[in-house]
């Protein structure tokens, strides 16, 4: 073991750009989405119904924002997934359930989070985080599929309808699609709250430059991380 702090370059620029794009997109999507589900906080703006949306923050405009950021989120996800084949460190979102190390390290981390042990081994990215990110990506993909399916139904048989329309009968009708889209929106925000907390906690306790790693790509470790073979 060496006691020198070593710098590890982990996150590629594409990954970091994708991260901040979806962080922004999800924030906008959540706020506009909740408004669409229950338009309560703006109220009518009193213009003529036909021309009002040219002037103010109307339902029409909020829906336009929602759909635009839907496209942006989709673009960020495509960017994130397209880099997976090319760089090992970009595959850190895959939880390796099938390895022994996954379970050992997961328990090691969990015990620390439950205050059973005082610290956990250093990780590039611990198994719990990997699993959470993987789960988040599934939720985001679900949101994109259901979102574009609803979006596409204003033009049945069109591009989005052909691509994602199958989810509507699979969930038991379009009303159910709205419902699940709505419920999953909350699950994603639940993730965000916990994620931001965990990131800041890690930064303060482990002093590994966690928060800034999503800006400059680097983390700092005194001891060699247990999952170093993954990068």
């Amino acid at each position, binding site marked *: 073991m060496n006691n020198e702090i070593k710098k590890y370059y982990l996150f590629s620029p594409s990954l970091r750009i994708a991260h901040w794009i979806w962080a922004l997109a999800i924030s906008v999507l959540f706020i506009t989405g909740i408004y669409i589900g229950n338009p309560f906080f703006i109220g009518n703006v009193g213009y003529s119904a036909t021309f009002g949306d040219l002037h103010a923050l109307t339902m029409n405009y909020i829906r336009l924002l929602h759909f635009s950021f839907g496209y942006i989120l989709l673009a960020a996800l495509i960017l994130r997934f397209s880099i997976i084949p090319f760089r090992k460190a970009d595959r850190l979102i895959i939880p390796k359930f099938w390895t022994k190390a996954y379970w050992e390290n997961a328990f090691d981390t969990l015990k620390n989070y439950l205050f059973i042990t005082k*610290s956990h081994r250093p990780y590039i990215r611990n198994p719990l985080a990997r699993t959470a990110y993987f789960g988040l990506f599934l939720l985001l993909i679900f949101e994109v599929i259901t979102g574009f399916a609803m979006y596409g139904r204003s033009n049945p048989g069109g591009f989005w309808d052909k691509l994602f329309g199958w989810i509507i009968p699979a969930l038991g009708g379009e009303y159910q699609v709205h419902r699940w889209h709505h419920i999953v929106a909350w699950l994603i925000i639940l993730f965000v709250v916990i994620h931001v907390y965990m990131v800041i906690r890690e930064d303060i306790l482990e002093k590994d430059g966690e928060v800034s790693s999503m800006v400059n790509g680097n983390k700092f470790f005194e001891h060699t991380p247990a999952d170093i073979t993954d990068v």
Partner: protein
Amino acid sequence: MIDGKETFWEALKRHGVSRREFLKFSAVITGLMGLPPAMIPKIVEAMETKPRVPVIWVHGLECTCCSESFIRSATPLASDVLLTMISLEYDDTLSAAAGEALEKHKDDIMKKYHGEYILAVEGNPPLGDDGMYCVVGGKPFLEGLKKAAEGAKAVIAWGSCASWGCVQAAKPNPTTAVPIHKVITDKPIIKIPGCPPIPEVMTGTIMYTVLFGKLPPLDSQGRPKMFYGNRIHDTCYRRPFFNEGMYVEQFDDEGAKKGWCLYKMGCRGPTTYNSCGNLRWYNGLSYPIQSGHGCIGCSADGFWDNGNFYSREQNIPFIGTESNADKVGAVAVGAAAAGAIAHGVISKIRSGKKED
């Protein structure tokens, strides 16, 4: 009844319809089926040459609202359709005859026109207890339905019952009622959902099918595209108020009087496909939204199980019907944030101890 070989035009003539009236009628139904005027000669030709198609109309678990709707069709008149367009050989609610004689007639027709007749199904079969919850002519409807479907050229599923299951299939579905496509798997099925469907949609579909001898273009769910191609929401005349954010908040408020959008009153227009917005009801007189009530989604799959008709609040299925996704979500996120702060404080204290 009448020999199935008679053509539509012959049947009309027999009823004293003039050539001029016949041509006018052909033009009207061409428009109704959503076809361009260029198709009028084709329709006329079909009317002159195609033999009338025998139709068997059966009733399972249902409320007869589809039949009630059908007989109110104004363009074309239901009577025109029944007496000249099709040869309705069996319908246990509309027929004057009843009992064993009628049942025997049905069997004869099924044999004579095997592979040629159209089967129209109103209602659906309950599967529970071997189908004993719906008995027609002394036999479970399930049995009769399967038998009638065997020799049918095509099947029309009238209403939400036959198409999706409707109220009898709503949770907990005590009789295990199922839409007809669950038991008829080897025949083309046209779904005409609605509770009931719009009369002109019913007659329009049946005319298209008999005149062209084929199914109308169907969407991915098996519904005719010309009648179910758009959401109520996308054809609604109140849509500008939706876009603008002008909503009825209560049925007796200013917005309600001014005819604003009924979205916040639970309107299901955004998730429902039907022709109410363009064909409307009662020969184009009105439709629910026009009368100030939100759409309840009567032509949508599972509309009885989609919660309160007067609210858009989404409940969370595994928590219960009284849960509201926004309230549960806000509580969960709040709890997570509070938990995070508490966890952070404890973590900091414990890690401080480690360094000592």
